[in-house]
């Protein structure tokens, strides 16, 4: 039995607490993800998938409950240490890619390494390897705004991988892609899985959750994990 690298214990997330527009996005959700597995979180929009992914990805703290990443209760850590843990163990691919438009591909990819104090030489070496892997080497100095959607997606993946993080989280990665690009993406995800990454994807796209490479499919509804 493999170790659970990601664990959520009874997490609840309430936004705008005490205000009239209070919303509980995730209610008492618990999950365990084993090392090296590919898990898909599916469900209709507004079911709390993205919030749960944010909680696991250390983008926000749960109102109640605990998130444990590689044995560390990150939800209880001060922000600085949570961020450090996040930088070292989690790569996040955002739904809208969240790249900085005015910057070059290379500069976007190395963003997570800057606060770590990695020298530009080491940064570029690592980025070049990823650019090669994702077939972006010819776009190295291009501005993000001049790239196509598929290229932006690949830049986002490369940025998530630059830390050599073992855990990869992707929020609706196929939402902006056509079927050709979606199958390309699936190829990449399979490659990553084979290289030992633990991957958690939220999606309501059947192409993703019906893919044979997927180990587990969890379904969410109204902030709760139903299966």
């Amino acid at each position, binding site marked *: 039995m493999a170790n659970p690298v990601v664990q959520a214990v009874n997490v609840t997330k309430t936004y705008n607490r005490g205000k009239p527009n209070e919303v509980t996005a995730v209610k008492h959700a618990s999950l365990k993800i084993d090392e090296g597995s590919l898990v898909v979180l599916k469900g209709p929009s507004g079911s709390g998938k993205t919030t749960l992914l944010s909680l696991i990805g250390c983008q926000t703290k749960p109102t109640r409950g605990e998130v444990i990443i590689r044995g560390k209760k990150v939800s209880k850590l001060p922000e*600085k240490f949570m961020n450090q843990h996040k930088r070292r163990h989690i790569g996040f691919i955002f739904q809208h890619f969240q790249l900085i438009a005015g910057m070059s591909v290379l500069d976007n990819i190395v963003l997570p390494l800057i*606060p*770590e*104090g*990695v020298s530009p030489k080491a940064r570029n070496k690592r980025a070049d390897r990823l650019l090669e892997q994702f077939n972006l080497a010819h776009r190295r100095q291009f501005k993000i705004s001049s790239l196509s959607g598929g290229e932006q997606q690949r830049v986002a993946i490369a940025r998530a991988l630059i830390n050599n993080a073992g855990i990869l989280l992707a929020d609706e990665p196929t939402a902006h892609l056509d079927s050709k690009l979606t199958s390309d993406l699936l190829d990449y995800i399979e490659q990553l899985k084979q290289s030992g990454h633990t991957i958690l994807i939220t999606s309501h796209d059947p192409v993703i959750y019906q893919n044979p490479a997927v180990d587990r499919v969890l379904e969410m509804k109204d902030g709760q994990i139903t299966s």
Partner: protein
Amino acid sequence: MISGSWFERQKNIIDYSLQSLLRRRSKNILILIIFILLVFAVSSVLFITESLTQEMMITSNDLPDITVQRIVGGRQANVPASYIPDIEEIPGVEAVETRVWGYFYLASLQANFTIYGMDLNLLEEGEYQKIVNWKNVPDESENQILSTRPDFRMIVGQGVFELLRDIQMEKAYLFYQPTWEKPIPFDIIGTFKTETELQSNDMMILQTEGARRVLELPPDEFTDMAVYVPNPEEIDNIALKIRRYFPELRTITKAQIKNTYSSVFGWKSAFVLSSMLAAIFAFLILIWDKASGLSPEEKREIGILKAVGWDTDVLLSVKLWEGLILSGVSSLAGILLAYTYTFQLRAPGLREIFIGWSAIYPSFQLIPDADPKSLLLIITISVVPYLAVTVFPAWKAAITDPDVVIRNI
């Protein structure tokens, strides 16, 4: 995961700050230029004020302790010699010096020259000798009119000398007023060295007896008196006594003259600064508008950086470096440009406003004088508020959870 040293981390942060400044190039260059202009304008006014005031203050301690004038009918009148023994008797007075001086209006140049009468033989002795460029006095045989009569000699300032040379009177000058029977010739036996031109430029120092003739001053009367008091604590008391004994006399102490010295350029600088006030405020508002607050794009950028694992303090250091680089570079450049403009280029434009219009100008090379306190003040009032208006909104954006960014585009 490779982690670099603290130093490498700071270098990365500075790199990112500069990159981010360059990415918003047009906005930041505008701020930079306006910032430099503002600092430049304010500091050149301060520089020229301080250095002009300093020019006057340098010699203020060599002034007579008390200048005594006689006021009749609200105007200055000649002082009869009868006052001298009475003032000399006041305890604490070391000496009373009578002075003969006045102005000579040269209609063709529309300029007033200051005529000061003194014993020129005094200038030939000791230290005083060095302030005069002595000229060869023409022989009696050479010219009948320009005889070396001891009472009709004079030493002129460089500015006067140049004007007289233009009208070929550099050896002797004929003073003339329409009411006089005939002109009075004076031999020019020397000029004051250019080093003293800020004081001597428009001066004609005549032998006392000759000066009396030119100024039409009756014998036994003087223009005013200089009273010397060895004990500086006593100056005000003695001035008070003089006024009590002789209500018609007016006393001007050294301290009062220094007061006018410090205020004359002070109010000019206030005048210049207040006339620039509208422009200064307009530019400040422009900088405020450009620099403060964050555009949605900048907010998004901060969110993305937080989402990829940047700490709040790293984000704040980035913003701090951005502000520090921009405001530091511009205030330093502004001050250095102001220095070059004021002391190396001699403040064209500003100088005319400060010294005013005049018929003869001294060549006017100012001795640089910069008060480190005011430099520090300029830097503080330009850098600190800029940092405050740029870092505070960034801090507000940086403390929000990054998942807000993930939800919104």
